C-alpha cells in the first residue's frame, strides 16, 4: 500500500528533475532547532571571545576619532577645497550599499517566494542594520557643527525656518532613517517566533526573562501565526520599494548636482545595482566563515552560495554596463567638461586617480565574471576569495565618483588633490571593528538562521509530504 502511494503521489523518478532540497542530509526539525539554538547556548567558545575583544578594540577607534573630530574640527580629515567630501561620504555610501542585500533578501525574495532565502535572511538583515549604523556615523559627523545637526529635522520653530526640501541631502536623511527604522522592525518581527523558541529552551531565570520579554508573549497559537504572517507580508511590501529608493536617493546627492562626473541620470539604477552587488558580496563574506564555524553546511548549502554568486555576477555586469554607459554618454554628450572628467580624471594612465578607477573596474567588472563558471561558484573558498573584489571595488567606486569628480571640475585654477589623513583611515577602520563587533554579538545572542522558516522549507512541512521511511500512521483513520 505504501509502495503504491509513493509512486502515485511522490516525485516521479526518471520523469522529472528532482529539485535539490534546501536542507540537505534530510535533517529533522528537531535537529534544526537544536543546531541553531545551540549556537547561542552552552559555553561560549574561545574564538568568539578573542574575536569580540579584537573587534571591540578596533571599534573603540570610532568614539575616539569622533571625540577628536567634534572637539577639533573637520580639518583633521584630508578633505579640502575642492574635495570637500572625500572618505566621509565615500564610506557612507559604501556602508549604505552593503546594507542593501539584507532587505532585498528578506523582502523581495520573500515576495517572489524564493524559498532559498530562509537560511540567510536573518543574518543578512542583521548585517543591514549594522551596516546602516556604520553608515549613519559618517553623514552625521561629517558636518562642521554636529551639535546643530538637528536643524535637519523638520521641527516647527519660532523662526519658521524649515529644512530645505529641495536638497538631496535632506532626502537622504529621511530615506536612510526610514530605511533603518523599517529594516529594524522587519528584522525584529521576524525574530519573534525564534525568540520564543529560545525562551522556551532557556534554563536560567534571567535568560528566560530576557528572551521572554523580547518574544512579546509569543505562544505559537494559530491566531498569532495569522497575525504574524500578515504583518510580515505588509512589512515586506513596505520594504521592497525602500530597497530601490534608498540608494536611488543617495545617488541623487550626486545626480542632481552640476559637477561633471556627478551630473548623470544613470545613477539611480546604477547605484541600486551596485548596492545589491556589494551587499551580496558582504553577505557571502560573512556567511561563508559562519557556515564553516558553526557547521551550517546543511542549511546554507552550496546551492545557496551558488545562487548568491549568480546574483553577484549579474549585478556586477549591470554595474559594468553602467560604467561603460556613463563613459559613452560623457563622450557622446559633446560636453568637453564632462568628457574631461572621465578621460583625464579617471581613465587615462596620466589621470591622477587612474589607479582608483582601474582598481574599481577590475574588482567590480572583471573579477566577478569568474562566477560564470560553475566550478567557481561551487568552490566555497573560491567564492569567498572572489567576493573580496567587489567589497574593495565598491568602496573604490564611491571614491572614484566622489573624489575624482570633485578634484578637477570646471575651473582648472581650483583643481587640487585629495590625500587621506590618518584620521580618515582610523575612523573607517573603526567602523569595520564596530560592524564585526555587532555581528559577533548577534551570532551569540540571537538565532542567526530563522529556525521556523527553515523548518517550513523542509519536505516534512509540505502537507502532502509522506515520509517514506516512517511507519504507517493510523491516527487519522481511526
Amino acid at each position, binding site marked *: 500500500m505504501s509502495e503504491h502511494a509513493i509512486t502515485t503521489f511522490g516525485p516521479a523518478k526518471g520523469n522529472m528533475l528532482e529539485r535539490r532540497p534546501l536542507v540537505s542530509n534530510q535533517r529533522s526539525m528537531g535537529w534544526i532547532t537544536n543546531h541553531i539554538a545551540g549556537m547561542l547556548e552552552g559555553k561560549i567558545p574561545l574564538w568568539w571571545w578573542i574575536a569580540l575583544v579584537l573587534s571591540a578594540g578596533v571599534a573603540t577607534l570610532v568614539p575616539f576619532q569622533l571625540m577628536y573630530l567634534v572637539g577639533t574640527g573637520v580639518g583633521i580629515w584630508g578633505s579640502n*577645497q575642492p574635495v570637500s567630501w572625500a572618505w566621509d561620504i565615500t564610506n557612507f555610501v559604501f556602508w549604505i550599499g552593503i546594507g542593501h542585500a539584507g532587505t532585498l533578501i528578506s523582502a523581495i525574495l520573500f515576495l517572489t517566494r524564493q524559498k532559498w532565502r530562509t537560511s540567510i535572511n536573518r543574518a543578512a538583515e542583521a548585517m543591514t542594520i549594522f551596516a546602516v549604523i556604520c553608515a549613519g556615523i559618517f553623514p552625521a559627523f561629517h558636518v*562642521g557643527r554636529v551639535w546643530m545637526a538637528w536643524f*535637519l529635522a523638520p521641527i516647527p520653530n519660532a523662526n519658521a525656518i524649515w529644512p530645505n526640501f529641495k536638497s538631496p541631502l535632506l532626502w537622504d536623511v529621511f530615506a536612510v532613517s526610514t530605511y533603518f527604522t523599517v529594516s529594524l522592525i522587519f528584522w525584529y518581527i521576524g525574530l519573534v517566533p525564534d525568540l520564543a523558541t529560545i525562551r522556551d529552551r532557556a534554563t536560567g531565570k534571567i535568560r528566560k526573562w530576557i528572551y521572554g520579554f523580547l518574544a512579546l508573549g509569543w505562544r505559537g497559537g494559530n491566531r498569532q501565526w495569522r497575525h504574524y504572517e500578515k504583518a510580515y507580508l505588509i512589512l515586506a511590501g513596505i520594504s521592497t520599494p525602500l530597497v530601490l529608493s534608498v540608494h536611488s536617493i543617495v545617488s541623487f546627492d550626486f545626480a542632481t548636482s*552640476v559637477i561633471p562626473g556627478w551630473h548623470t541620470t544613470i545613477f539611480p539604477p546604477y547605484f541600486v545595482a551596485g548596492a545589491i552587488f556589494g551587499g551580496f558580496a558582504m553577505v557571502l563574506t560573512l556567511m561563508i566563515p559562519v557556515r564553516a564555524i558553526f557547521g551550517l553546511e546543511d542549511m546554507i548549502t552550496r546551492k545557496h552560495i551558488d545562487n548568491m554568486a549568480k546574483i553577484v555576477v549579474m549585478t556586477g555586469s549591470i554595474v559594468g554596463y553602467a560604467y561603460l554607459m556613463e563613459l559613452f554618454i560623457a563622450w557622446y554628450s559633446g560636453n568637453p567638461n564632462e568628457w574631461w572628467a572621465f578621460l583625464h580624471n579617471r581613465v587615462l594612465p596620466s589621470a591622477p586617480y587612474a589607479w582608483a578607477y582601474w582598481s574599481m573596474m577590475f574588482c567590480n567588472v572583471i573579477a566577478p565574471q569568474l562566477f560564470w563558471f560553475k566550478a567557481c561558484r561551487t568552490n566555497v573558498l573560491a567564492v569567498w576569495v572572489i567576493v573580496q573584489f567587489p567589497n574593495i571595488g565598491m568602496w573604490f567606486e564611491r571614491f572614484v565618483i566622489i573624489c575624482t569628480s570633485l578634484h578637477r571640475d570646471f575651473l582648472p585654477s581650483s*583643481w587640487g588633490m585629495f*590625500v587621506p589623513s590618518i584620521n580618515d583611515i582610523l575612523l573607517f577602520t573603526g567602523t569595520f571593528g564596530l560592524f564585526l563587533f555587532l555581528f559577533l554579538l548577534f551570532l551569540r545572542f540571537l538565532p542567526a538562521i530563522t529556525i521556523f522558516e527553515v523548518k517550513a522549507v523542509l519536505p516534512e512541512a509540505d502537507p502532502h509530504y509522506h515520509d517514506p521511511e516512517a511507519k504507517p500512521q493510523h491516527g487519522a483513520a481511526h
Partner: protein
Amino acid sequence: MPRRTGGLPLLVTSYNGRPIKIEGNPLHPASKGKSDLLAQASILNLYDPDRSHRFVQAGKRSDATSCFRALAEAKTLWQQGGGKGLAILSEDNLSPTEDRLQTEFQAKYPSALWATYEPGRAGSVQSGVETAYGKGAVLRHRYDLAKVILSLDADFLTGEESSLANVRGFADGRRVEGPDSSMNRLYAVESRYTNTGAAADHRLRLPSSHIVALVAQLAAAVGAQNLPIFSALPEVSVDPNWIREAAADLLAAGSKALVVAGSTQSAAVHLAVAAINEALGNQGSTVEVIRLPRPSSLSIVELAAQIKAGQITDLILLGGNPVYNAPVDLAWAELQKSVKNVYRLGVYEDESSEAVAWHLPQAHYLECWGDTLLQDGSYGCIQPLILPLHGGISVSQLLAYLLNVPAPEGKELIDGPALVQETFKRKSSTLQTGVFDFENAWNLFVRDGFQAKSAPDATKSPFLFSGAAAVAENRMSRPQALGKDNLEIVFVNDGKVDDGRYVNNGWLQELPDAVTKLTWDNAALMSPATAQELGIYSGVQVQGITADGIYRSDVITLTVDGRSLDMPFLIVPGHADYSITLPLGYGHEKTGRVGQGVGFNAYRLRSSQNPSVLTGATVVKKGGKLHPFAVTQEHWSMEGRDIVREGPIAYYKEHPGFVRSLGIESHTPENLNFYTAPPFDYEKYHQWGMSIDLTTCIGCNACVVACQAENNIPIVGKDQVAKGREMHWMRIDRYFSGSQRDIERKMGVMPTDPEMVLQPLTCLHCENAPCETVCPVNATVHNEEGLNVMAYNRCIGTRYCANNCPYKVRRFNWFDYNQRQLDQLYWGPLGPKGVEETLKLSKNPNVTVRMRGVMEKCTFCVQRIETAKIDHKITTERREIKIPTDSLQTACQQSCPADAIVFGDLSDPKSRVNQIKGNEMFGIKGYSHDYNLLDYLNTRPRLSYLARIRNPNPRMPGADKVGRALIDAYEKKHHHAEGHDKAHDAKQGLKPGAATPAGHSQETAPTPH
C-alpha cells in the same frame, strides 16, 4: 601712508576709536578713493601683537624713564662734542618734517653723520635721472597721456615703480567700452613675468643684464642723440624685427609714446631712456620732470667705512633693519657690534635689536602725527587714529627730543601735531601769498589729508646728456653671454613683504603671489629650460605634487662672488633663460611669530656694488629634503576652456559679439528653463550686480586683501594653504596659454614663453545658484535683492554647497581659525583658545567672525549695502526709495586702482553696471564683450566679465598669436572664419543675451505692472 616711493593718500574708517579699514583718499586726484595692496594690508601691522612694545636695555626689559635718562646723558655729551662720534642711520620716508628735523639736526650736531638706507630702492634710477636733468630731478610719468608704452624691466603697475596714478592712467587708456574704443599699447621687456608683462600686448623675455643692449639698439632706431657709449655693445639675441617695429610704433606715437626703465636697470640705461624719451619729444607730455630737493645724506657704505675706521662711538638706528638687509659685503652685524652704543628705534625686536644698548619701540604710522610727500609730489598729512597701542614713538618725536624741542610738562617727548604744524607753516609760506590763515589752512590740510595744489609743477628741464656721457660710461655694465655657468641673478622687492618690512603681516604672507601663486615663501624663480639645463629639475615638479598632495621643490645652492645661499626654486613660464630672480624680504632670523623663519634671505647674496643684477652665478642641486611650498593654484592651463575670453581689438571690431560664441557656448543651445523662479522685483528692491573688466585688471591683489580686511577673513597658515584650505573670498586665477596636459606629456615642463591671463573671482551670486538648492538646512538662500546670502548661524557645515559650486568660491572653516593658534590647529581643545587683544580690535564690527564648521563666501559686502540703505533712510526720512545711483562700493571695488570692478544696482537704469552689462528692461544695450562664466550651466550669475581685449601691433613678430588661443581653436573647429561668422551671427540673432546678459533674459525679467 608713507612709502619710499611716495606716500599714498588714505582715508581710514574708524569704529569706536579703532581704525579698521583703509581706503584711498577720494579727494586726492591720484587716488580718487583707490588704494593698493600694501595700503590695504598695513592696517594689520597696526594690530600686530608681535610689534615691539617695550624698551630694552642690552637685552633686558626696561622702561621709558630709564631709557630717556640714559639718552639725556648721552645727548649732553653729543652736544658738547658737536655730535662727534655720533651717526644716524635712517630710512628714507619722504617726510618733510623728518627732512626738516634732519637739516636742523645736521646744524645742531655738525660733526655727526647722517646716513640713509633703503634696501628696496635702487640708487640707479635717481642717479640716472639726476645725470640727465640735474640734481633733485624726479620723473613723473603720465600714463594717462601715453598711447604707446615700452617698459624695460619696469613693473610700473605693481612693482617698485608703481603708483596709483600709473595704474589709473594705464587702465583708463585701454578701457574698452565697445568695438570703437581706442586702446593704448604696451610693450614689455622683462626678465621675470610681472603683472606689467601680463598686461602687455607684446612681451619679450630678456635677461635684465641684456636689456641695456636692447636699449642701445632702440636708441639708434628712434634716432636718439648720438650715444657713443652704446655703440660698442655686443648684439644680444633679440629679434631685430621686434626692436624695429616697436621703435616704429613709438615714433609714430610721437610725444604720446613713453619709455620707462625699471629699478633693476643701471643709471646708464635710465640715462639712455631719458635720451629716447627726449628724442620722442615726451618731456612735458608723457614725462614730467619735477624737482624734489632733499637733505643730503651719506650712503650706508660711506657710514660703514666710518665705523670701520673707528670714527663712530654712538649709532642711532631710526627704523630699518640693517643687520638683516644691509649689503652683505659690509658685514653690518659685526660693524654694529663694534660701535660702543647703539640706539635702535624699531618696529620689531628683530635682528638689528640684538646686542644694542637700547631698543625703543617704534610707532605705526596710524599712531602718530606725521607728513609725507605723496606719489605725485604733493604734501600729505598723516593724522593719528589711535594712541600708540604698544607705547611706540615716532622718528620725528625722537629727533625732536635730540634737538631739545620742548616737550609738554611732565613728558619726555613732544606730542601732537606741533612738529608737523611747524613744517606746514614753513611749506605754506612758500606757496601762500597774502595773509596766511594758519588755523583754516591747517584744518583744511588735516581734513583733506593733503595740501591742495602742492604737487610740484613740471619744469622744462634741459637734457644734460653731453656732460653725463662719461659718468654713464663708468657705470655701464656690459652685457655678457649668459649660460649655465654664468647665470644672472636679479634681486627684486617681493610683491608682498616688500623689502622685508611686511614679513610679519599674515595677510600678505598668505596672499598668493600674482604670478607664482606662492604663499608663505619665496623661491628662486627661473625658466623651465634653465632648470632643465642645470639638471636641478626633478620629476617632482612635473606635476608639482608629491604623494601627500603638497607641492615640493628641490633645494639648490646659488653661488656668486664667493657667497652662496641655499634656497628652493620655482619654475616660472615666461622667465628669461639663464636668469634667476630672487625676491627679497624673507628669511628673517628674528621677527614676529608670523614671519619668523619664512622663506630665504636673498640679501645674503646682495652686495653694495651690484644691488640689482649680478652675473656670474652658478647653481647646483643641494639634494636632501625637498622643500614644501604652499601654492594656491596647481594647474596653470585653462585646457582650452572658455574661462578667460580674450581677443585682439581688430578682431573685436570685425566680430563685436565674438566673446559670447567662444568655447562650449558655440555649441550649446540657448538656456531654457522648465521652471522659472519667481522673478526678482526690480521695482521695489535693489538688484545688485557686478562687472569685472579683464582688460584693465592688472592682478595687483589689492582687492583680495581689501576683502580680507573688510570681511574679517582669517589666515590659516602655510600648512593649511598647502592642503588647499585658504579662506580668501576673492581670488585671482592665473592661467598661462597652452595645454598643461599636452606639455607635461611631451616635455615634462612648463611652456617657455606663454601668455598669461588673470581673472578675479568672487562669489558670482548666481540667480539660479547650484549651492542653494543643495543646502539641506536653508543656510544659503537668495534674498530679494538678488544676493546669495549665507546665514552662518544656520549653517551646519555639510559642505555640499562648496561641492556643487561650479566656480569653487566657497570657503569652509575646517578649524577654529579665529580662536586657535595656527601651529596648534590639530591639538583641538588641548591647545590654547582665544584671540590676541589687539587682533580683536582689528575686526570689522559689522561682519560676523565665523566659527569653525561653517561655510563662508563673498557677500557682495552686504554689510556695506545695509549700512548704505540705513544711512539713506535716516538722512532722507523717506522710507521706500532706493539709495542714489552708484553711491555704494564693495570693498574690492573701492580698492581697485584700475577701476576694473564695477558694482551697482541693476534696477537703476542710470547705474554704471547697467551700462556695462546691459539691461533689456531699460533698453540698455550694454558692452558687447560682456560674458557670463560657464553660461551654459544656466546659473545666471550676477557677476559677469568683460572679455580681455588686447591691442597687438599687427607688424610685430608673433602678433597673429596674441590673445587668439580661443578664437583660433574655434576657427580651427569650424574650418574657416566665414563659418564662424555665420554660426556666430545666427547665435546673435537667436540670443537676446546679445544685448543683455543671460541674467536678464526674457524668462526672468520681471514684467512691470
